[in-house]
């Protein structure tokens, strides 16, 4: 028996499901020998396989989407790398402490020298950055990714009995399409740096998503709870429905809501997550405890210890982003990170930022150069370099 006949026999036995493990191994070995073996196997398999039904178009799209997302990192990385994240926050805390000490001594040393270099910095704005826009991507339950930008409009998808409509001005709306499908379809909206987006969920709840944030939610709320998952920052106006509590999950943090408006800031690069209640009532739950907030109260949740501390907050300041403004009461790194996310620039500290008094309200439609000019005039030297905002000594 020559090789061709042998392969033919083995494939026949395989087709009849009488092939032994040893014979399968033999076939695998033959395959490894040369491309010629592959040609033989292919031509054998081709006979009688012409009318095999292929996966549906939708399934093919999903398969492709899964392959292309395999070498990206999921949004919910926090769950996968929580251990390292916590230690990262410890490092950040230590680094921040060192920066503060360095900052103070730096300031003491500098007191005697004159700040002569601020004026010549103002004129060096060669690079500029446009403000962010209404952009995001929507990932449907089957893995299809739809870019949401000014070009996307109208009804863009059907998820079970829920229609997904893209409205003017960066808004995505879920509404009943009256069909009888009761399956649960999870969708995710991801907003990149330099973006923002508004969602109207199936229950009428409105969610404003800030730059570098995402929300995962079911197209329709079919269970006993309305559960969504947030990364980054979102402002929620939750439709009241006492029978179906609204829950926001972000890493270890859980917010349970009846009907209310609140802002939730959970950016991973910030040392504390902040839940700020505008009105209504929410319960903040972490791995170690919980707290109920009254309107005007803000819960700060430490990333390292998960401890919750409750205090008051400046409403204007916290929800300024949602209304299209930056509101600064003083400039610190956290504010600079807001700029980083909105203008899609990285921060580079050539000196610790001087935590200066800087009261101001600036529209988020401003170009970065104008803000930088304002900072320079106020004694916070900085400049834009390509895709960086550099804080100068």
């Amino acid at each position, binding site marked *: 028996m020559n090789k061709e006949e042998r392969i033919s026999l083995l494939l026949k036995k395989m087709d009849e499901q009488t092939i032994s493990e040893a014979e399968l191994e033999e076939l695998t070995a033959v395959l490894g020998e040369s491309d010629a073996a*592959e040609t033989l196997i292919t031509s054998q*398999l081709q006979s009688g396989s012409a009318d095999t039904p292929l996966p549906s178009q939708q399934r093919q799209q999903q398969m492709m989407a899964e392959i292309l997302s395999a*070498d990206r990192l999921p949004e919910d990385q926090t769950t996968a790398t929580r251990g390292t994240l916590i230690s990262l926050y410890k490092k950040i805390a230590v680094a921040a402490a060192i920066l503060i000490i360095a900052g103070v001594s730096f300031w003491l040393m500098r007191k005697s020298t004159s700040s002569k270099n601020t004026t010549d910095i103002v004129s060096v704005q060669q690079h500029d950055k446009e403000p962010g826009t209404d952009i995001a991507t929507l990932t449907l339950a089957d893995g299809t990714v739809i870019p949401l930008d000014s070009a996307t409009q109208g009804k863009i998808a059907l998820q079970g009995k829920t229609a997904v409509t893209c409205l003017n001005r960066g808004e995505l709306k879920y509404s009943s399409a009256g069909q009888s499908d009761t399956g649960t379809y999870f969708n995710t909206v991801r907003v990149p740096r330099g973006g923002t987006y508004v969602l109207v969920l199936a229950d009428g709840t409105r969610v404003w998503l800030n730059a570098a944030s995402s929300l995962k939610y079911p197209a329709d709320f079919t269970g006993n709870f309305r559960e969504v998952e947030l990364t980054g920052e979102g402002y929620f106006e939750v439709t009241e429905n006492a029978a179906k509590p609204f829950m926001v999950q972000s890493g270890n943090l859980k917010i349970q809501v009846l009907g209310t408006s609140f802002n939730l800031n959970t950016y991973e690069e910030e040392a504390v997550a902040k839940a700020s209640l505008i009105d209504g009532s929410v319960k903040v739950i972490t791995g170690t405890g919980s707290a109920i907030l009254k309107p005007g109260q803000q819960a700060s949740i430490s990333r390292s210890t998960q401890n919750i501390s409750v205090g008051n907050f400046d409403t204007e300041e916290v929800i300024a982003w949602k209304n299209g403004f930056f509101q600064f009461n003083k400039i610190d790194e956290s504010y600079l990170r807001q700029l980083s996310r909105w203008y899609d620039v990285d921060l580079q500290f050539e000196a610790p930022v001087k935590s200066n008094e800087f009261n101001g309200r600036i529209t988020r439609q401003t170009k970065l150069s104008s803000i930088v000019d304002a900072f320079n005039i106020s004694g916070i030297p900085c400049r834009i370099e390509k895709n960086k905002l550099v804080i100068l000594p």
Partner: protein
Amino acid sequence: MHISQPYPDKELLLLIADGDELAFRQLFESYLPKLYPLIFKIVKQEAVAEDIFQETFLRLWIYRNKLPEIENPRAWIFRIAYHQAFTWLRKDAMRHKTTQAFGESAAAAINAQETEQVLSFRKLESLVKEAIRKMPAQQRRVYLLSRERGLKTDEIAREMNLSVQSVKNTMVRALKTIEGYLNNAGVKPKLILALMALLAQ
């Protein structure tokens, strides 16, 4: 691309090597009707055939920068797919044996344990993600800028203030990192190792 064409276009492979998702999608779509029925003929289960097809293309994507050097890419792709299908059949036969010897419950327990191995695409996917998480920070950043934000080499260079050449080198190293990680995890079948060794010569 036409089915009669023996090899995919060199040009298409060059685009894919450069990380072009559209070109890759084109290859996927043109190979599905050719290759999927053959995998199905081997494994005789839709879900398994889909998984193997998917895994084959994920491998291809991970080895994308080597594609233009492969002499007969079509044969290479088919061999990977057959190899996976034969391996699955062997594991399936082992499961049957277990069922006969120890009854359903034992087989179910082994099945549960092996789900990860049976669903080869998922396993490969999680290894790829793990590899990316373990990349040095700069490498990971370059890689993800390309993959998540779809930036081109020159755009990444500008974004990160690096030279185009150093971005190119970093991308090559990033793909090597993933490949190396998969090798260490032992998921690369001997066949592919052999094919890779041939390429390296």
